């Protein structure tokens, strides 16, 4: 399963590996401490992952030690670092915290090892189906789900006519336009910057309308089938050109969406559950006046007092939304020198206490179904029912080794969403995704 290299590349890789690890070796003296498993995680939640590493080291009783290492904050940069080091033959990568979208790519390229069937069966036990799905490629488990994530609709109760949240995108846009004419907060916050978040938004709308980007095989493009693509693009266009739209919409990511809502300018956002602890940490965000507009005056009422959640809006009345799930999976690098120990450690790192800690301290929902009935979890996640329901209806992003290129061409083509032409763009989108799937041509 190792990537092919010629001798010269190996030499460079070893040199690079030596340069990178020399300080680490000098610092930890890991050579005389037996098996050391290095656990690379994203920067977000690194504290919890480090605690899990410490707990699992203790549980191993000296058979191995797990050292947590932090990767950059941005997913693109995490992926780049991991891929570059594995291709270079870096043997100091053992356990990798992987975004759910990387599984097919890393598995197909031979950068991660398939789980032994026995371990895979144990991982499957009690794990949410959609989350398990994200870790598989060609019917084998390559990455064990640690955390998952799903979006909900977050809204302001004081701005809803009749106090009831909208159930479809069309309803939501109507309410927003009405608010705009009344000079009240009218922004709908979505992740529409040119990045992965925009692809996620499109994929959610597309699957909710009954479409798919690629088929099961990861290579057949299905964007031209039916009317779903045009419907999804139509919703995006309407959101981006509605009266009273957020002028920075085409630059918004999850964090910026959350802050726009906390500042009192937005009436709605579709976003991950981290926004709830987020607004509580910020004392409920901005003060709002009797019309709901943000004010610097101490009115005694803040955004947090009127902040609520609802299921993600559907595309068609009476339909369900199939929200694209996110999350973090754990894989074992093909360059690791200790695969058996690494697979064992993965099981410990994703056990119930560690997932509960990630959920409570890190704000990321767990992948073990049983935790959703745990009182400690429910206390921390007032929205747990909506989250669980959303996960049960979840859709998975297109599983394809070329996912990254697919995502890049989609987000480039659909940004800014205000310039989408729903009718004309279906064909162009499909042909660009086809080129990306075959890794032909350039990515923007």
């Amino acid at each position, binding site marked *: 399963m190792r990537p092919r290299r010629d001798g010269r590349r190996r030499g460079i890789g070893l040199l690079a590996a030596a340069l990178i690890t020399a300080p680490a070796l000098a610092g930890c003296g890991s050579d005389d401490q037996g098996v050391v498993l290095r656990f690379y995680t994203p920067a977000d939640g690194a504290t919890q992952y480090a605690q899990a590493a410490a707990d699992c080291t203790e549980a191993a009783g000296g058979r191995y030690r797990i050292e947590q290492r932090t990767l950059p904050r941005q997913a693109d940069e995490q992926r780049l670092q991991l891929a570059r080091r594995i291709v270079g033959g870096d043997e100091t990568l053992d356990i990798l915290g992987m975004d759910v979208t990387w599984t097919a790519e890393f598995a*197909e390229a031979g950068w991660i090892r398939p789980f032994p069937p026995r371990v895979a069966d144990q991982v499957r036990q009690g794990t949410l189906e959609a989350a398990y799905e994200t870790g598989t490629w060609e019917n084998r488990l390559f990455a064990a789900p640690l955390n998952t994530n799903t979006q909900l609709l977050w809204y302001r109760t004081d701005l809803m006519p009749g106090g009831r949240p909208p159930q479809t995108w069309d309803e939501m846009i109507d309410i927003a336009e009405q608010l705009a004419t009344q000079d009240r907060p009218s922004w709908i916050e979505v992740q529409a910057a040119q990045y992965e978040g925009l692809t996620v938004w499109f994929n959610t709308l597309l699957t909710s309308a009954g479409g798919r980007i690629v088929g099961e095989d990861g290579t057949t493009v299905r964007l031209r089938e039916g009317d779903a693509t045009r419907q999804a693009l139509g919703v995006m266009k309407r959101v981006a050109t509605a009266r009273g739209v957020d*002028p920075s919409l085409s630059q918004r990511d999850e964090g910026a969406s959350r802050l726009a809502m906390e500042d009192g300018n937005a009436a709605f956002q579709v976003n991950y559950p981290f926004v709830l602890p987020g607004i509580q940490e910020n004392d409920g965000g901005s003060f709002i006046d009797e019309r709901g507009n943000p004010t610097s005056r101490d009115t005694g009422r803040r955004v947090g007092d009127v902040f609520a959640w609802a299921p993600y809006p559907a595309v068609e009345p009476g339909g369900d939304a199939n929200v694209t799930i996110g999350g973090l999976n754990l894989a074992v690098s093909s360059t690791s020198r200790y695969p058996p120990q690494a697979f064992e450690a993965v099981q410990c790192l994703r056990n119930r206490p560690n997932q509960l800690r990630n959920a409570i301290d890190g704000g990321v929902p767990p992948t073990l179904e049983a935790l959703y009935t745990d009182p400690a979890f429910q206390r921390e996640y007032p929205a747990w029912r909506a989250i669980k329901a959303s996960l049960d209806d979840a859709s998975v992003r297109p599983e394809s080794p070329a996912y990254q290129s697919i995502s890049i061409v989609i987000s480039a083509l659909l940004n800014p969403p205000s310039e989408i032409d729903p009718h004309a763009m279906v064909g162009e989108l499909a042909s660009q995704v086809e080129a990306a799937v075959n*890794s032909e041509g*350039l990515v923007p």
Partner: protein
Amino acid sequence: MTVAAPQRPAAGDARRSEGAKAERRLAAWLCAPAVIVMLAVTAYPIGYAVWLSLLRYDLRFPQEREFVGLSNYLAVLTDGYWWSAFTVTVAVTVVSVAIELALGLGLALIMHRTLFGRGTVRTLVLIPYGMVTVAAAFSWQYAWTPGTGYLANLLPEGSAPLTEQIPALAIVVLAEVWKTTPFMALLLLAGLALVPDDLLRAAQVDGAGPWQRLTRIILPMMKPAILVALLFRTLDAFRIFDNIYVLTRGNNGTASVSILGYDNLFKAFNLGIGSAISITIFICVAIIAFLFVKGFGAAAPGSEPEGRR
């Protein structure tokens, strides 16, 4: 460096050429380490990139690696993304270098004429050039983002300049100009030192006004310095990466050719296409350098400098 002494007696000549040979050998030995290092750190990577650009080589599909000749170049040159990035790059280069030349010349004239605090003035002017580009780019980014920035607040409500192509490119040009005008000014200042004061005084006595002195004497005398400054800045500007990467990440049609190369190499992991883009940029840069260098030899003093395009 070599010793040339043609008018010597024959016997002495033989001896000297013997010495010259030895000296040349020594020179070769002394140069060798530098040449070897240069070969290792420049020739090898360039050669390797050329080789990669002829392969279909996507890190994600290692088993599909094969020799495909020039088809990667064909893919690059027939792709709309390349040409839009190329247009953006050329536009940013031309506009920013033109503005820098005008401002830099003004600054150079001021610095040249400063009577007191010369050192202080030059230091102050150089501050932007001394700043880390990425740090400066981040402060521009915050300044132009609605909500966090003082500059964005000066604009009409609801405008977000970094989200639209033309305003975003204008900000990129602004950041580039702010950053590198001092460098331009410094190079031009060195050129100004070449203009003899006697000549200017003579012209003044003959009745030439300030404008005539600038266009008829100072600029022609400075031409070599101007061309060097333009060459340096054009090559630099054509490879623009950091400002765009921080300000817009290449979104909304603001990607330069370097950003495009980076994305194909490091996001799509497509070594073949990415290398073909890099080599194409390299060729563009070589063409620009060639045009400028030819401009040096061809243009007679006083004629329109060819480099100013």
